[in-house]
């Protein structure tokens, strides 16, 4: 039985099902859901499903989608995963405007707040950046090349986030670490200046997000982890501000 499974490993990848993903448009115009290799978008304003014509090559994702996001300005959407193709969509016309090839499977994606750059992380722990400044939505699909931005040595990056002011890019990995890096004016040359490390989690970091308040518009970083805590950080210093235990408690 075991031998049979090993032989079929290449053709029968569906034995392990990728977790379903959901993303919401920043103005709640639409909702996107990824199930396996299938991407579905629902237009909340028009109250109808959106059909996604994909003229890029190859069309549609051929393998499990691992990451989806809307850009903060609501104009862009990105999907990527095990088929090693990062697809960048217009979140208005729902045309696929660019396809970027990755050498390895993709584990996380992020879009800069101004919509000028898309970043994605591969399974070797390298974060890549794509420049979108010369793209307009009316062109035919553009194949873009990504440049290496930074790397977490031999670790899988689970989450990528831009800070609300766009000054920093945050990357979290399975080796409990969160790295805060200055996002430079010319990111295609790499992001070499590390601002801080947010260290404290005792298990893999699974997710990142920012919470902004009126008093603190630059936002606080929040992270979730396999150690059953949610932690609050100041990204400038890397200081741990608070820890919230969310593990199951005996009543």
């Amino acid at each position, binding site marked *: 039985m075991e031998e049979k499974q090993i032989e079929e490993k290449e053709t029968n990848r569906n034995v392990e099902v990728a977790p379903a993903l959901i993303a919401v448009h920043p103005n709640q115009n639409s909702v996107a859901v990824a199930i396996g290799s299938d991407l579905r978008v629902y237009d909340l304003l028009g109250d109808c499903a959106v059909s996604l014509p994909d003229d890029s090559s190859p069309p549609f994702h051929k393998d499990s989608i691992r990451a989806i996001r809307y850009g903060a300005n609501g104009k862009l959407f990105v999907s990527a995963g095990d088929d090693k193709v990062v697809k960048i969509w217009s979140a208005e016309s729902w045309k696929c405007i660019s396809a970027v090839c990755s050498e390895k499977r993709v584990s996380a994606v992020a879009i800069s707040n101004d919509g000028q750059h898309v970043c994605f992380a591969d399974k*070797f722990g*390298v974060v890549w950046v794509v420049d979108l400044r010369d793209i307009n939505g009316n062109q035919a699909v553009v194949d873009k090349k990504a440049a*290496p931005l*930074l*790397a977490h*040595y*031999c*670790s899988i990056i689970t989450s990528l986030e831009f800070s609300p002011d766009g000054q920093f890019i945050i990357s979290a990995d399975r*080796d409990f*670490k969160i*790295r805060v*890096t200055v996002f*430079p*004016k010319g990111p295609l*040359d*790499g*992001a*070499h*200046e*590390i601002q*801080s*490390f947010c*260290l*404290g989690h005792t298990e893999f970091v699974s997710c990142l997000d920012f919470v902004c308040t009126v008093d603190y518009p630059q936002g606080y970083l929040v992270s979730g982890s396999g150690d059953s805590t949610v932690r609050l950080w100041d990204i400038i210093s*890397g200081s741990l501000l608070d820890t919230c235990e969310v593990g199951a408690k005996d009543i």
Partner: protein
Amino acid sequence: MLEQETNPTISKSTGLPRKRFYRARAHSNPLNIGCGFGGLLISLSTLFPEVLMIGMELRDKVTEYVKERILALRVSNPGQYQNISVVRTNSMKYIPNYFEKGQLTKMFFLFPDPHFKEKNHRRRVISPHLLDEYAYVLGVGGIIYTITDVEELGDWMRSCLENHPMFEALTKEELEADPVVKLLSSATEEGQKVARNGGQTFQAVFRRIVPTS
């Protein structure tokens, strides 16, 4: 000292500048066990007695060897060799766990594993991405010293450092004025072995700078 070894979180700064060593796995030669490691660490200990220094080593046996060597020196030289120690760790993964931003004044990479195959180049201890982390723990003005007897690796390390915006090469005059540079080949066991065999060594010594934007 034991606390430092088992506690992976950032150690509190003692206010003293620190140097840090890295000894990657030398291209494996089983006959090398017992040839003596910790040479440079031990030489520098008495040269700069006010500076804390730590050696980081991946191999258990080598770490134990260096630890025993230091303990023996402390016994036979009371009051000395208190400023050096060694820890078994994967420094390529956990450097920021051990050191605060800008905490180090010097870093040493001595005869690291060349990882000849191209697909393993990313495992090299000096790489464009890892230099970001070394630049983070090195204070501005801090110096990184590298030496190897493998020419191709020497070219690679020099090239990575030259292309990194946060490092600049020391001038010939600065190299000659630095007492530590001479020790790279004379104080290390590997360096002495290369000299005995009439081989060549390749050094790259660079300073951590503020990047010009």
